[in-house]
């Protein structure tokens, strides 16, 4: 493994920012540390960088324990949340800083800086000062500054947080492409699941200082291992009582059940396609319809339970108060920290994936 964290613990007073965190990252991967704010994800990144010292545990890069190596000697690139560009240096000098520190010859510095500037597409702006750049341009400079000395690892702390929504999307794909191009192992911190799913090869989910799950975006999405992950990734509804739902009689009452919109199908009684499934479905009433741009988010009341489903705009129109059949074809059940997927037992013969 290229980057390894082993049993990292860190306390700030009474607050435990990292509780026995361990993970491995393969060379060349782009990994997201995802978690809500205050979950400890930034602390983990800073420990890796050497800007924070762990109370316990080892940080290992390429098989070498680097606990006692100071941040300035670790050879790690770091992009700060606010970019932390040097205000009194031009774009050129900012990028050249890490190279000059290494006592590189002037010609080599110039060559590398110009290479970086053309890589980030800011040719002609090298004499500008950071305050004369837009947010997106500043991020590009921060990125170039971090990778100019050829670090073995790149860390990014909330790289998109300070940019407005429109530019953010563009920068995300830009950054992903850049990291691919440079081929550098990278870890970035984010609280935005959409961002993590879109950009990262692997996602590490952190909550309250615990590592909840690590895996590819689709693994995490399809097989959440903890209630927190199931809840945090995608949109979910948490239920505690499914008794009365056809096909789920075996689920004990009181267990934590998580339902996603894509596990719920709502159809009209005269729908031919789903006609055979009526025995496995419950009757419900539409309570709320919200337009979400490319689909409708429909809230249905089934008995005492509220379920949410997404409905394509191509389907027949519906209205609040309308009676519909609601088919619950899959759920997650959590028991003592482990997650299990349950299929509607009446649908055993039907291939759900084809629906």
């Amino acid at each position, binding site marked *: 493994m290229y980057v390894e964290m082993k049993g990292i613990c860190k306390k700030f007073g009474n607050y435990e920012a990292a509780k026995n965190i361990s993970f491995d990252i393969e060379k060349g991967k782009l990994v997201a540390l995802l978690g809500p704010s205050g979950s400890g994800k930034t602390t983990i990144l800073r420990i890796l960088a050497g800007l924070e010292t762990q109370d316990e545990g080892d940080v290992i890069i390429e098989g070498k324990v680097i606990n006692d190596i100071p941040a*300035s000697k670790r*050879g790690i690139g770091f992009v700060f949340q606010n970019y932390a560009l040097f*205000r*009194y*240096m031009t774009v050129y000098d900012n990028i050249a*800083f890490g190279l000059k520190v290494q006592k590189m010859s002037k010609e080599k510095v110039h060559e590398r800086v110009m290479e970086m500037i053309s890589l980030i597409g800011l040719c002609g702006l090298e004499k500008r000062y950071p*305050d004369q750049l837009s947010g997106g341009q500043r991020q590009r400079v921060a990125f170039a500054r*971090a990778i100019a000395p050829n670090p073995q690892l790149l860390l990014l702390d909330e790289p998109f947080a300070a940019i407005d929504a429109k530019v953010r999307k563009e920068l995300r794909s830009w950054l992903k492409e850049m990291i691919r191009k440079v081929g550098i192992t990278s870890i970035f911190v984010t609280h935005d699941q959409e961002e993590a799913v879109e950009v990262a090869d692997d996602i590490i989910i952190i909550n309250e200082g615990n590592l909840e799950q690590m895996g590819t975006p689709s693994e995490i999405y399809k097989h959440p291992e903890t209630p927190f992950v199931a809840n945090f990734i995608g949109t979910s509804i948490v239920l505690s009582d499914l008794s009365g739902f056809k096909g789920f009689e075996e689920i004990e009452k009181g267990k934590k059940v998580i339902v996603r919109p894509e596990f719920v199908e709502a159809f009209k009684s005269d729908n031919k396609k789903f006609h055979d499934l009526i025995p496995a479905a419950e009757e419900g009433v539409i309570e709320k319809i919200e337009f979400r741009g490319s689909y409708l988010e429909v809230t249905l009341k089934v008995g005492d339970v509220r379920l949410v489903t997404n409905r394509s705009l191509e389907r027949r129109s519906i209205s609040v108060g309308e009676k519909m059949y609601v088919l619950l074809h899959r759920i997650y059940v959590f028991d003592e920290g482990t997650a299990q997927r349950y299929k509607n037992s009446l649908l055993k013969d039907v291939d759900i994936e084809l629906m």
Partner: protein
Amino acid sequence: MKKAGRRKGKVVIPGFGITMGITVSMLSILILIPLASVMAYSFKMSPFEFVKLITKPGVVNAFATSIGCAFVAAVINAVFGVMIAWVLVRYDFFGKRFIDGIIELPFALPTAVAGITLTKMYSDNGFLGKALERIGIKAAYTKIGIIIAMVFIGIPFVVRAIQPVLEKLPKSCEEAGLMLGASRAVIFRKIIFPEIMPPLLTGFGLALARGIGEYGSVIYISGNSEKNKTQVVSYIIMQKLNSGNVDYEGAAAIALILLIISFIMLFAINIVQHVASKRTSA
């Protein structure tokens, strides 16, 4: 229709007329008119008389003493001011607030009080004076004494100019330097120092300007000896007004030179600030 037309030019925030009026009259009464009168009085002399007066050895020496001592004092203040500001901003220690509070003491204290206290302490039988005497340094009634007094009155300018800038400097800038492999010394020189340079120059300039014109705190410790060249410019002006026949024109001529020096310094400070703000604003 005519009324609507007039309204167009009105500023939304009320009170512009009255506040601007008061500002201009205050500026005129307190600053512009007295300064103009200084010029007017000194121009009563012929240019020949003017040059003759300000090239008198006593006057030239006084200027050399005032400017020289104020410059040395301002340099000392720049060095220690940065240190004091650094300590006050970067570290937490017992009594920090107290120390932070007494930085302004030289502003609040009557300069005469500072003057006699310093004189007493640094004179031959004062305890600091005795200690310095032992290593062969005579402080009171020499230029060293003048510099000590000027350091005392100038230090708040430097500390108070740098403090807010250091406070605002984000920690991540230093961390960025660290991640790029820079040593502490390089981080201070290349990242922190450029940030505090403009306020440092401002503080230095203000301390220098204050030192050149200083009277109250310097007058006791300097000894005012023409022979030892410990007369400062303000003392020369005072002398001109104290002697049997009051030489107001002569005093005004010297004052005019002081005034010109002050303006040049203010101008220089403004240029420094302008250049600095050019870099850090779009």
